[in-house]
């Protein structure tokens, strides 16, 4: 494969409604946080160009609706994904409990060639709220979950305060690129 050609990496962001998927993506791509984003309906994506080592890649980040009723539509967009980003809200237990479901459902629908090796990343969002006093999911609990799922990389983020958003997405891009390379071989 020619190194000059730009690589398109498809990333799917999943998680319960309101955990901050849209906000994280917009913070990463547009460097903005707005109270005025709307609940995501249907699906949409944003793209961002970035350089990893000496390679120019285009990250295509798919934002889907968190509400379960729209799931049947979302699955149409899972196909061909290179990486899946799971997001939960550290202040909402339910959003953490749903992770298993999101994880398994994604693998089932996207049906990647090697499900065990498929790259996931977990983001625990909204750590800014109440200075962390209202959190109900501890970092340890989240890391344990990641370990049990084949050492999924984990980041604690705030879309609002722009905490570790860039780091998280760089890691995502790298994981996606590695996955893409693997498939080329």
């Amino acid at each position: 494969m020619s190194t000059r050609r730009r690589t398109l990496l498809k990333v799917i962001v999943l998680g319960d409604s309101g955990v901050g998927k849209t906000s994280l993506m917009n913070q990463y791509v547009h460097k903005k946080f707005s109270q005025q984003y709307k609940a995501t309906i249907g699906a949409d994506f944003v793209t961002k160009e970035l350089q990893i080592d000496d390679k120019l890649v285009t990250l295509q980040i798919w934002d889907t609706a968190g509400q379960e009723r729209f799931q049947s539509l979302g699955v149409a967009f899972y196909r061909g994904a290179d990486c899946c980003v799971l997001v939960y809200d550290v202040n909402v237990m339910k959003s953490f409990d749903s992770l298993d479901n999101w994880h398994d459902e994604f693998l089932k629908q996207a049906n990647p060639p090697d499900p065990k090796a498929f790259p996931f990343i977990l983001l625990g969002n909204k750590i800014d709220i109440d200075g962390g006093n209202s959190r109900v999911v501890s970092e340890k609990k989240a890391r344990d979950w990641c370990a049990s799922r084949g050492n999924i990389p984990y980041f604690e983020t705030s879309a609002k305060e722009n905490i570790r958003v860039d780091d998280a997405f760089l890691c995502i891009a790298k994981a996606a690129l590695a996955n893409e390379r693997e498939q080329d071989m």
Partner: protein
Amino acid sequence: MIEIESYDFADDVDYAASQQQGSQSIMRSNSGKMKDPEGGEVVYVKDNVSIHPTQYMSERISGRLKLVKQDDSLFMMWIPYKGQNTNTRLSERDRNLYTIRPLPITDVRSIRRHTPPLGWQYLIVVLSSGLAFPPLYFYNGGVKEFLATIKQHVLLVRSADDANVFIVNDFQDPLQKTLSSLELLGVVPVVAPSSAAIAVSPTSESQEKMAECACDTNCGSEFIERPKYKVNDPARDFSIQLLEKFSLVTKFARETTSQLFRENSGENLFLSDGRKPNHIPALPAAPPKLPPNDVQKVSDEVHVPEDPLEFYKLALIWGNPRQPPLSQEEWGDFLDSEGRVVDSEALKKRVFYGGIAHELRKEVWPFLLGHYDFNSTYAEREYLRSARKEDYEIIKLQWQSISPQQAKRFTKFRERKGLIDKDVVRTDRSFSYYNGDDNPNINLLYDILLTYSFYNFDLGYCQGMNDYLSPLLFVMEDESEAFWCFAALMERVGPNFNRDQSGMQAQLFALSKYCLVHWQLVELSDSPLHDYFKQNDCLNYFFCFRWILMQFKRQCADIYFSSFAHHRELRYEETLLLWEVLWTHHLTEHLHLYVCVAILKKYRNKIMGDRMDFDTLLKFINELTGHIDIEPTLRDAEALCLCLGETGAACIPPGTPPSLPLKNALVSSQLEDEILGYTILRKVIADQIASAKEDDLVAFELVFRWEW
């Protein structure tokens, strides 16, 4: 502008002669055998076939077109309806003048079909003598059936040079003789017999390609031999030359058509090959047609099949001109002394064409939504308002009285509350009515949505409902009234939020079905967009999901990315206008689907030219911000709706939201079967059509034999 509405047709030699021709021929072929062709077997009948005696589209004479079979002869007749008093300027005498008395089809020389991209197809029937009847506009469709029926009875072949010209009984090609006897240069024979002498000269590559493509796409199988040479002038429009040079069409028809043409294309008139014409052709030329496969074949230079729309925007293809919004005064006139809406259909029609002045919306919306009965009096509505207010408070109390302890054991309630909580703060916050911290209107949204989720516990709350409620609360400015209007609206659009997404599926299905039929029938063999979607896995029309789910609300008022805020598609106010127009259900309950098609058609060249794949198309549509102009889009949608008439409406199965759900459960399971069956059929048919392309009559028969 030339005033021709007072034109005296009796002085028109061409027309008079054509009248005579008609009656003469009937006498000739009667030969005592048949006195009244109407006594024969009616093999084709179509209502609302109209002529336009003036350049004003509003002035039309509608009538019934029939094909009658008597013994072995086929007769065509067109009788205007009696007592149409819509066009006062047109006299009964005019009506008689235009009547086509039973005319043996064998006296017809050729039939030319015109297919404007938006609007009604029309035919020009040219007689053996070279005279022609005024264009017949098929307001309810039926052109293909008409041609197909004729084809069953007489030999009907298609001109080699113009796929839209059908020659009747052409054994000897007498027309060609006529032409050559007149020694005209640059005119090509209507049918190219193998031995025909054709003026040959080197042609430019593009012309060659064009001619080839036109042939491949359109030539009927009747042509055993195709001309091997490229003609000097591709003579795309043989008829234009005929019409212009020989005045073969009645003077009035020529003037009418060129008036329409001139009026609407202004200075930007180009023929489809890019030439600026040095004269106004009497009739628009047919655009070159490329077989859809060429989109793939020509890999480097992307050739987008032309949308005829780009070239001439005839008045007849537009919907009616939009009007100013319904005013307070007019509204008063719609009410009787006790406050009843006297003529609800007239009111709906008025709103359909102009919307409602903002300060009146509060009064009129509850009628449109079905919250108020059109027949109710002021007093009855006053009573209803207070009774409904009590009802509302009672339902609201149901969730308000849930204690924290009870809530702890009520997961569904907590989840709903949580969802609504998150969504109300994400509802139209950029709009002044809802912006700012601690905005009380946000709390009202919350209360109403939670109350609704108790009122309709089965449906519950779903994202997007907040988007429907927001304009209602803004307009009604009253919690209980907004709630009941919302509840009435949900009766129609609630199925959009069904857990199994069946409501959305039904609409996407109807959309794709309509589009297929539309591309096939209106654009005829030219259905490149359909083929394009097919090639790119876009036939599920998923990219229209958001449009349909929220009836364009998000496209109207969304500021998804604040950096794009400056080109929001339609402003909040425009959503209000669009919605009230949709809610009138004037013409159709599914205008929003026609709006989808209108927008897709508008951008078809861009979609295909940029070779958008599914992802790109979705993005493009999500970001169609600032490019949707509501008024012209509504006009296009209206025209689309009229253009295929019942045939188009039949694509939308009964019970498709926002139609009220069918009472009969059996019927809805039928609908499901149909959806399932359709998916399979669609593939079969699409394949068949693809291979049967060269003869769209065949394709047509196919489409209609399946009778979805």
